């Protein structure tokens, strides 16, 4: 046991002496590994970044909220069946809440209608275009996934009376009121004055498609006053009491909605119930596909690096055949020689891995600094994984030449010039 430790120590010493003695060659060989490790680790950060982006985005939808909409989330083939569905009116939420209230032991808690359109928001000289303006009721407060940076949502009374108050998304508030607090300030939404009563905390974007921070929320009744034409088609958000019983809750909601819509038995639902889960089911295969393809492509570059290591180890064995013979004559066993060349290959890979990892780390910092919206995640587990990958690469690529070296006949090896 002691002996093998001495042998390993000695092997590392030789390996590093060897690398020092053949600097150029070692650098070039390591370069292959460095490129491979950078590619693989960057891919890793990208994948975990995408994953985190997904999780964040899905969390914004709320994992205990069902969405009643005309269209389902995700692609449909028979679009004409959906096109002809009657719109979902905001008033349906009141009917739905009535039904929920009348159902003993209902799994549903509360419904709120949400209507939306884009508009510009202005305060003094500053203007933000393309803000998603939502109109909803006070019940919305009970299913919001966003937190408030300051202020609050309008209450039931304010909502009912259609008071001209609003809540701004983080980016909108930031753009309009850089230096002062927006609370109790007036903004013009589509030219109409609204008083800011709350600001949402920063949320980020949904899958990078649109930003949750560029929104404004106002009472439905105020919305109707000014955006009347767009106020008839809504989505209903329904909060569920127990998120572990989503499927049952969904069944109950379908039944309730059919009553609201006055649908006859046998008739197909004229609405879709959407939930976070549906998104997940659709996005997971895509995510896995990206991960698989990405890792395969970057794995190829690592493979090329591994071939470089194998090649240089073969050269090293060839060059040092006589040394192998000498070592064998002095009592080196097969294992000793095998270890020596394996450790040499692994050392180059480890050095390459460490350099590659630092490069990736630097690149991640750079990306975060220049493009903060990119979900780049450099995790500690990546360090472990890439070092393991480096060692495995070294062992796999160094094994064939090292095995050959360990099997050399000592007489032939000593005679080799």
């Amino acid at each position: 046991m002691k002996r093998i430790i001495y042998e390993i120590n000695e092997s590392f010493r030789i390996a590093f002496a060897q690398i020092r003695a053949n600097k150029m060659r070692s650098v070039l060989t390591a370069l292959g590994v460095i490129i491979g490790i950078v590619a693989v680790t960057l891919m890793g950060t990208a994948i975990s970044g995408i994953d985190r982006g997904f999780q964040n985005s899905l969390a914004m939808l709320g994992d205990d909220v069902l969405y009643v909409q005309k269209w389902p989330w995700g692609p449909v083939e028979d679009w004409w069946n959906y096109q002809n569905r009657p719109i979902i009116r905001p008033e349906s939420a009141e009917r739905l809440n009535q039904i929920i209230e009348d159902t003993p032991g209902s799994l549903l808690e509360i419904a709120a209608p949400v209507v939306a359109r884009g508009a510009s928001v202005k305060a003094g000289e500053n203007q933000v275009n393309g803000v998603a303006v939502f109109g909803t009721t006070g019940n919305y407060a009970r299913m919001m996934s966003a937190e408030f940076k300051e202020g609050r949502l309008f209450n039931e009374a304010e909502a009912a009376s259609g008071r001209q108050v609003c809540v701004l998304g983080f980016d909108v508030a930031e753009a309009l009121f850089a230096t002062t607090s927006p609370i109790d300030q007036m903004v013009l939404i589509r030219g109409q004055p609204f008083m800011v009563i709350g600001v949402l905390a920063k949320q980020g974007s949904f899958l990078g498609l649109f930003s949750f921070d560029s929104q404004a929320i106002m009472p439905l009744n105020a919305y109707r006053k000014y955006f009347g034409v767009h106020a008839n088609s809504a989505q209903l958000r329904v909060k569920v009491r127990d998120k572990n019983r989503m499927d049952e809750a969904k069944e109950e909601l379908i039944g309730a909605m059919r009553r609201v819509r006055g649908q006859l038995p046998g008739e197909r639902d004229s609405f879709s119930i959407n939930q976070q889960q549906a998104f997940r089911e659709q996005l997971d295969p895509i995510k896995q596909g990206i991960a698989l393809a990405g890792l395969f492509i970057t794995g190829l570059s690592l493979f090329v690096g591994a071939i470089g290591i194998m090649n240089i180890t073969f050269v090293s064995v060839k060059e040092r055949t006589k040394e192998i013979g000498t070592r064998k004559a002095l009592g080196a066993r097969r294992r000793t020689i095998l270890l020596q060349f394996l450790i040499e290959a692994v050392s180059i890979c480890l050095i390459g891995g460490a350099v590659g990892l630092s490069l990736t780390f630097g690149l991640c910092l750079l990306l975060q600094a220049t493009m903060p919206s990119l979900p780049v995640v450099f995790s500690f587990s990546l360090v472990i994984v890439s070092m393991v990958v480096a060692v495995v690469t070294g062992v796999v690529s160094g094994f064939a030449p090292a095995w050959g070296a360990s099997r050399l006949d000592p007489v032939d090896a000593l005679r080799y010039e």
Partner: protein
Amino acid sequence: MIEIEGVTKLYKMGSETIHALLGVALKIHRNEYLAIMGPSGSGKSTLMNMLGCLDTPTAGRYEFNGKHVAAMSDDELAEIRNREIGFVFQTFNLLPRSTALSNVELPLIYAGFSAQDRRARAIEALENVGLGNRMTHKPNELSGGQRQRVAIARALVNRPSIILADEPTGNLDSRTGVEIMELFEQLYDQGNTIIVVTHEEDIARHARRIVRLRDGLIESDRPAD
């Protein structure tokens, strides 16, 4: 200590079979100083490889300190070479990037000595061959004679049963060669067993017993005059 009997070695070179040794018998005792001589092709290198446990005979018996070598595995042979045999090569075969001290320590690593013991023993061995002041030098900073002394220190460091020297003066000028042979003389006086393989009569004359080979057979085996 060494006893070989009816040792035969065949090599296959393509379709031809070469008989390098054709039934050789030899006994070597502790604290003998033996020279093996013969022209090239006589089988003396093969015999040396066999004695050094670098190779195993095709047929015949080889006993080393009572152990049967002919049937040993590669790793068992490595063990014997490590503990029982000290090699001295014509071309010194030092590791070029290691210091004299590290070179001498090498067999001790394979024997499983701790770093401390290795160092102490290697220093002792180097001092024994008169290189106490050259320990941190690398082979390319040493003269030919000094390199061969390092190699001899390396051969001695694990206190082997025999020292097996293959043309130890072949790469040295005659004056340095004489110095090396004096060193062997000294080691012999200290009680070591020495086998020198050479084709030079001058070198063989240092030994106490000369074995001459020709065409794979022992031609003569008698005390040196």
